[in-house]
């Protein structure tokens, strides 16, 4: 091969796939160690109460049982802390690893059984009896707060962001639009349930945690701190992970328990969650109620937004503290100019499963709220909502655009973007005018069909720093060691593509390591759509340096200048004679070996650690258009067509980007129409099986059209990359709500997600009765 291969921008096959399609994946349930014990959690059946007694005697005597623990057996284990560090004022709301005085949600861990197999562990768990003095459960975040514990209310925090004199603007505003909106409680629900396998190697005093996910390095620090061990004595191992979506990998009580037990019993401890447990114990998300109003002028230009919302946090604050409601405040204005702004979020604890981040956290919610507001402004003033969007959208000339709002500890500054340009592209791709005409004709024939649109800004590329180490061995094999994490998104392939093109090798020969704290000291894992930006950019940096190192010694050995050389398909060649004399990278590595006589003063090894640092997240953006058909009799909604337009900056692997968007759309569809964690008045969860918690199947999920724009590469990293992980899901609730309004001819009808058939029928009947 004499031509340099381009890998970036190609939809190459994934490196991850061959083991997965042949059933050779290593998900945590697939891994076992000799003499392991199985852990089974005994969970509260009561939503709120004081624990009177826990009787484990019958369970302890059951066949195959090794031990049974309650809180009293682990007095030295502290509650799980917040991921960003200590926040003293919020600490009282953290969840104890095993319930102590109170139980606060159905599903809360009260005790754990350790037995020789999973079946017998479950048998024994049934024998643990818990006596609870029931207390009235608090099931609504917008109800008056209750008592969390004596002297402390269930309002854990009030988050606020804003600027300008909102009140005076409203006093003189020509028009005010007010909405009361709610997003239902739902979550990521990956197809693989949670699990962990901890093993303590006492000979080396090393605690191994298998089944790590999302943020292995952070979790390693947290576990080491909680157990009072040095970092060197704890290592995390990530295998295959069956979806994350923000839910998996946040440190949970069960993760801590397997570690404590592995060390105390000196036997491996395996815990695999079942589906019912997952639905009541893994992080919930999304449930917010917003009372929002906008002051606008006669042309629909926003003068101020004032938002008050109630965030249903569930029973405790988990590792994310109050970041989701805080981010909601910061990101709600989205792509629009908002001269004065106030957002106040009441973070209220309720007796439900605790909530945390789920793909596009705070953004799925705020996009729904913001875009409903835009539609409402258009309707009130008789202006096409898309024109309202045009009049308010920030323009490229105003970039970079900063306002005194924050997310994830950084001021929000939009780096680049042509929102109106993408809006126009999306409308053109959807043939909006003909589409509206055709829908109007169908409505005239009696069908309830309509189209809706939503415009949004995403965020990605959270820094500050990531580094990777690339090594070429004497056989010529390339290995990239990252601190990244795989949740199925294809990080190995993307990193390999970037390394391959930058270095000059075939991506298929590259081994990418991730999720291993024993292989690299630092890592950012996979979350906040940052992996391609950060780990990808660090890979680019390391590969450039490695290329330089190879060419530097090759120039000497080939007796020519560095400028005359290039690396093509793993060989250093002369640019002017690529088919001629060459040196394989493996040979270069031999020349750089510690004992090599040709190494000179150079550092041994063909290996480089490269870093990428940024103080700036990037803000990609998109437009979604939905076409729905409503069955007025049943209230059923079908999505006929869907277009997702997205500014990806630069796509390393377009097929993977499309996969992320299509998958995100399906989840967004679930949240818009099907998925909801419902509770009864006693705090009993009603969605505890896949027959009640409805994930969209292929039958409900249409193929969507995806328009990827690479018009505005990010100025914040050398490859111009923006992340895509959360773009597919962000505005789906908003777009579908807007389309349903149009289909039934009732502007502003949809104020609550999910739009279930019963809710839609109620809207239709109420509207008909009013006439």
């Amino acid at each position: 091969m004499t031509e340099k291969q381009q890998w970036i921008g190609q939809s190459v096959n994934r490196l991850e796939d061959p083991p997965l399609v042949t059933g050779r994946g290593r998900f945590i349930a697939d891994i076992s160690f000799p003499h392991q014990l199985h852990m089974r959690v005994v969970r509260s059946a009561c939503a709120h109460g004081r624990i009177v007694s826990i009787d484990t005697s019958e369970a302890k005597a059951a066949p195959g049982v090794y031990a049974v623990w309650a809180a009293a057996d682990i007095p030295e284990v502290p509650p799980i802390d917040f991921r960003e560090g200590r926040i003293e004022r919020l600490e009282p709301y953290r969840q104890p690893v095993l319930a102590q005085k109170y139980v606060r949600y159905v599903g809360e861990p009260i005790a754990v059984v350790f037995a020789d197999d999973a079946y017998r562990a479950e048998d024994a768990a049934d024998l643990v009896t818990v006596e609870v003095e029931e207390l009235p459960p608090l099931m609504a975040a917008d109800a008056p707060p209750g008592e969390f514990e004596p002297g402390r209310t269930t309002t854990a925090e009030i988050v606020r962001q804003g600027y300008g004199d909102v009140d005076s603007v409203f006093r003189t505003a020509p028009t005010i639009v007010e909405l009361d909106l709610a997003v239902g409680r739902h979550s990521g629900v990956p197809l693989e349930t949670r699990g962990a396998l901890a093993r303590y190697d006492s000979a080396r005093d090393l605690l191994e945690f298998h089944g790590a996910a999302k943020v292995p390095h952070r979790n390693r620090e947290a576990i080491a701190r909680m157990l009072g061990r040095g970092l060197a004595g704890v290592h995390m191992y990530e295998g295959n992970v069956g979806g994350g979506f923000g839910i998996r990998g946040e440190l949970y009580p069960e993760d801590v328990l397997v570690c404590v037990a592995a060390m105390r019993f000196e036997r491996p401890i395996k815990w695999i969650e079942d589906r019912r447990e997952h639905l009541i114990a893994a992080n919930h998300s999304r449930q917010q109620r917003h009372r929002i109003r906008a002051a606008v002028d006669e042309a629909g230009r926003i003068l101020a937004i004032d938002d008050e919302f109630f965030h249903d946090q569930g029973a405790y604050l988990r590792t994310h503290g109050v970041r989701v409601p805080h981010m909601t405040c910061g990101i709600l204005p989205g792509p629009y100019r908002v001269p004065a702004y106030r957002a106040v979020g009441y973070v209220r604890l309720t007796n439900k499963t605790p909530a945390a981040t789920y793909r596009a956290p705070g953004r799925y919610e705020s996009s729904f709220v913001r875009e409903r507001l835009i539609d409402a402004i258009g309707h009130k003033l008789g202006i096409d909502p898309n024109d309202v969007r045009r009049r308010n959208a920030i323009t490229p000339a105003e970039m970079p655009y900063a306002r005194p709002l924050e997310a994830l500890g950084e001021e929000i500054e939009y780096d680049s973007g042509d929102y109106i340009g993408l809006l126009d592209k999306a409308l053109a791709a959807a043939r909006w005018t003909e589409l509206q005409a055709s829908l109007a004709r169908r409505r005239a024939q009696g069908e309830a069909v309509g189209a809706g649109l939503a415009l949004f800004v995403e965020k990605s590329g959270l820094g500050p720093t990531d580094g990777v180490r690339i090594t070429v061995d004497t056989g010529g094999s390339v290995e990239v060691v990252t601190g990244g994490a795989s949740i199925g998104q294809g990080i190995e392939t993307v990193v390999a593509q970037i390394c391959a093109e930058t270095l000059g090798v075939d991506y298929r020969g590259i081994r990418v390591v991730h999720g291993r704290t024993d292989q690299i000291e630092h890592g950012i894992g996979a979350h906040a759509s940052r992996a391609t930006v950060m780990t990808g950019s660090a890979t680019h940096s390391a590969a450039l340096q490695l290329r330089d190192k190879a060419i530097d010694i090759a120039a000497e050995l080939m007796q020519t200048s560095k400028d005359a050389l290039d690396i093509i398909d793993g060989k250093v060649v002369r640019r002017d004679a690529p088919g001629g004399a060459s040196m394989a990278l493996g040979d270069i590595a031999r020349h750089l070996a510690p004992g090599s006589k040709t190494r000179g003063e150079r550092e041994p090894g063909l290996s480089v650690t490269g870093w990428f640092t940024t103080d700036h997240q990037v803000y990609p953006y998109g437009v979604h258009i939905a076409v729905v058909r409503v069955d007025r009799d049943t209230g059923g909604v079908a999505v006929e067509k869907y277009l997702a337009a997205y500014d990806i900056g630069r796509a390393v692997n377009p097929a993977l980007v499309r996969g992320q968007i299509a998958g995100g759309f399906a989840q967004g569809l679930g949240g818009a129409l099907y998925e909801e964690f419902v509770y009864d008045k006693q705090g009993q969860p009603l969605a505890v099986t896949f027959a009640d918690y409805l994930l969209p199947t292929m039958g409900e999920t249409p193929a969507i059209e995806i328009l990827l724009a690479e018009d505005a590469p990010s100025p914040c990293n050398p490859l111009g990359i923006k992340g895509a992980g959360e773009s597919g899901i962000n505005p789906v609730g908003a777009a579908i709500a807007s389309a349903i309004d149009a289909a039934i001819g009732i502007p502003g009808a949809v104020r609550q997600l999910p739009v279930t058939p019963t809710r839609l029928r109620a809207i239709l009947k109420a509207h008909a009765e009013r006439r």
Partner: protein
Amino acid sequence: MKPAPFEYHAPESVEEAVALLAEFAPQNGRVLAGGQSLVPAMAFRLARPAHLIDINGIAALAQLSLGTNELTIGASVRHAAFHQPITAAPLGRLLSEVVRHIAHDPIRRRGTFCGSIAHADPASEWCCVAATLGATIVARAASGTWQIRAADFFTGVMTTALADDELLVQVKLPLLPADTRSGFVEFSRRAGDFAIAMALATYRVENGRIAEPRLGIGGVESRPRRVVEAERVLQGGIPNAECFAAAATEAARAVTPMSDPMISADYRRDLVASLARRALEQAI
């Protein structure tokens, strides 16, 4: 979600099965046929039978036979047996239309027609068919064999006239006259989900008028039934949109819908009106 322990029996004849049931039913023994409903219940430990009597190995129970007046469906005949019409006559077409709505293909390869009848979930399509067409359930115990009419068989949500020690060995469905028209409609959240409501309509036309109307509603009340109030409206009427709408309205008025935290009785009642009308229109 692992099942609680049980003793497992795999009889090879109906006599052996019935004897085992006589012995173990009092000790919380249950029949295992397709398992597509029982095993999930056992996984959630809502069902904890101490004994399971697996009837899948009994050849005599796997028979599906077409007689002159009726179709006899053995206890272990799978849903999938109805994918292709078992007869070109109206009953065969009707069953192959209905079976498409039952869960998904892999469930239908194991789940059984008779198992659904014995399980008596109000949302079961086969129960609606049995009630509407007037099926006969054949039960056998150590002490003898009984025939129970469908109308007497379903007594409530997941409750039937079957005694604990009785094995449901067959269900007989009467063949429908050659000129029978039928329509079946159900509404569920997703394809393959349990139905929130369903309607099955059959009728013939004599001299331009509706004869032998049957309108069965399932998923709405605690058990499926023929809504005779609506059938009276259809009987002798002209098979047109007005007649169907009137019958559907009457059906909605006549039912006493169940109510649960997710779905109100009113919503179900409204569904009955729509689905009954659609089933009748489909039957044209």
